């Protein structure tokens, strides 16, 4: 019997598989047995009530989507009175996700939702910092650290920093949030993109730019997970284009302690449940007693254990 349990960023889970923030809502419970998941990560909320951006909100590619939703939020009271009770009854730890316009607001919101039914809070630092001309907190190590410090100073709950991939050196951001007290990093949010309709000569998204997610982004984020895992001691949670159990193994080998499945929940609601079974079978087949052993177990050929992996001159 394989031990699938992991302890990640202060949260003990029955298995390393959870949904990415924003990829599930109440409707998933009509199709999926949420009790089987490692954790249940909720959609990001903001301190205020937001409607989100103007449609159209999604563009489709062969194996990716470009979404711009704009974090519609019903605010913290709705979260505590409706969303948390709805998901807490299934059993797995519930992870809240928050975003705000300033580091101070992140701290206040973390304090407001610190509730025994919530196991950890994920900081969605990919949103614009209104004190820095709209530049995302996660694009700047100082701003990212300020958010985490503000949250850690205001809650006893573990804080996970969900990094943005839209940076030159993601390891630098990972180190900054680790130093600020983050209990885990989630690598990563969506890759910024844009789509244009040649016929109408207009953007395909109401918000003009959006975030690319789905299987196509896996190689990019897998590389970033590997870089983060080498840079920090806190656990790295892999999130980028995962659709199968095999993808999960790859992420864990690259250094992830757990993973999140996002876009694939929109296409195959069974993706999370099926990949849990696949990972268990893989471990049995490979004679791996504990799934946690896979984290960072990537086997590099001896001559590739050099700094040549840092070379970007391809």
């Amino acid at each position: 019997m394989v031990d699938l349990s992991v302890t990640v960023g202060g949260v003990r889970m029955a298995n390393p598989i959870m949904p990415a923030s924003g990829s599930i809502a109440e409707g998933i419970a009509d199709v999926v047995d949420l009790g089987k998941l490692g954790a249940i990560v909720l959609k990001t909320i903001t301190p205020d009530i937001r409607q989100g951006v103007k449609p159209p909100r999604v563009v489709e590619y062969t194996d990716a989507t470009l979404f711009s939703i704009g974090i519609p939020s019903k605010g913290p009271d709705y979260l505590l009175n409706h969303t948390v009770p709805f998901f807490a009854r299934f059993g797995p730890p519930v992870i809240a996700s928050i975003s705000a316009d300033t580091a101070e607001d992140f701290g206040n919101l973390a304090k407001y939702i610190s509730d025994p039914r919530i196991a950890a809070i994920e900081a969605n630092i990919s949103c614009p910092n209104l004190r820095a001309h709209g530049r995302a907190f996660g694009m700047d190590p100082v701003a990212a650290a300020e958010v985490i410090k503000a949250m850690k100073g205001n809650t006893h709950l573990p804080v996970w920093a969900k990094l943005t991939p839209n940076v030159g050196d993601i390891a630098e951001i990972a180190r900054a949030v680790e130093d600020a007290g983050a209990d885990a990093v989630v690598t990563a949010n969506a890759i910024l993109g844009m789509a244009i309709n040649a016929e109408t000569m207009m953007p395909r998204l109401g918000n003009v730019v959006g975030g690319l997610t789905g299987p196509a982004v896996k190689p990019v984020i897998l590389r970033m997970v590997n870089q983060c895992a080498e840079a920090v001691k806190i656990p790295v949670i892999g999130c980028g284009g995962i659709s199968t159990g095999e993808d999960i193994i790859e992420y864990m080998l690259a250094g992830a302690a757990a993973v999140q499945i996002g876009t694939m929940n929109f296409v195959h609601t069974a993706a999370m449940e099926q990949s849990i079974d696949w990972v268990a079978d893989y471990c049995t087949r490979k004679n791996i007693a504990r799934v946690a052993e896979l984290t960072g177990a990537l086997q590099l050929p001896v001559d590739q254990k050099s700094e040549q992996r840092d070379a970007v001159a391809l």
Partner: protein
Amino acid sequence: MTLTATAKVEGPSGCFPRAENRCLVASNEPMNSEYRLMVVNAPETGLSAYAGQFFHLLCPATATEQPFLRRPMSIYRIDRENGQLGFLYKVTGKGTCALASLAPGDELNATGPLGVGFSIPEGTRHVAMIARGVGLATLAPLARMATVNGAKITAILSARAPEFLMSRDELEAAGAAVIEVNDVAGNSSPQDVTNRLRDIHEKTPIDFMATCGSNRLLSLTRELCSEWNIPGQVAVEAFMGCGLGMCFACVVPVRDAEGKEEMKRVCYDGPVFGVNEVTTW
């Protein structure tokens, strides 16, 4: 080859009201130059569908297309007796093109039934449905719903030309009185349809209206509902991400009774809304 009605399909998955139904295609034939009808043998969960709900269909990969997202498809026929569902669809983009490639015996992965469909208020005596375009498909199961509830149903079917009129047999079999209008005959203008409805209402008062497929038909439905002080519903169409209310891509502005607007999900809060709640179908 046509599969028999009793062809074995995978059973329902426990107590979940919605599922990724693995259906078997029984037939997938053109109805006219634009629309095709696909009939599938569906498991029990799929057959629990009711009028106005939809399925999110996984489109097969073809030599030229591989749609990533599923495609929402309203339900044209719910045949519990024979264990079948019918989808009437227009081949317009790569998703529907891929669906058109399915042959009898192929599997169709259909998540559903999804969304909130039509609800005919208790005590309704006479339902009027006004459909055009895809609405001819979406509204078809409403006739059965009305007759089961003991209501009479009058269906006005509108199209560009007579060859694009569909559903007459389906609706008459369900007990509907069918009136067909089309642009070529010149009897499909909103004014003509309104006049027809007024005549019908005078003889047998209409106490519930449903529409789908045209903004002009939605407008006239809203006006008549308001004038006659009766409820009316519209099925809204949208490009969707997930179909389960999770991604928030398919939102439309929805007005409440006080006129306050909120973005709501077509897939989860709809696709059926009150005629006064939405401005476009």
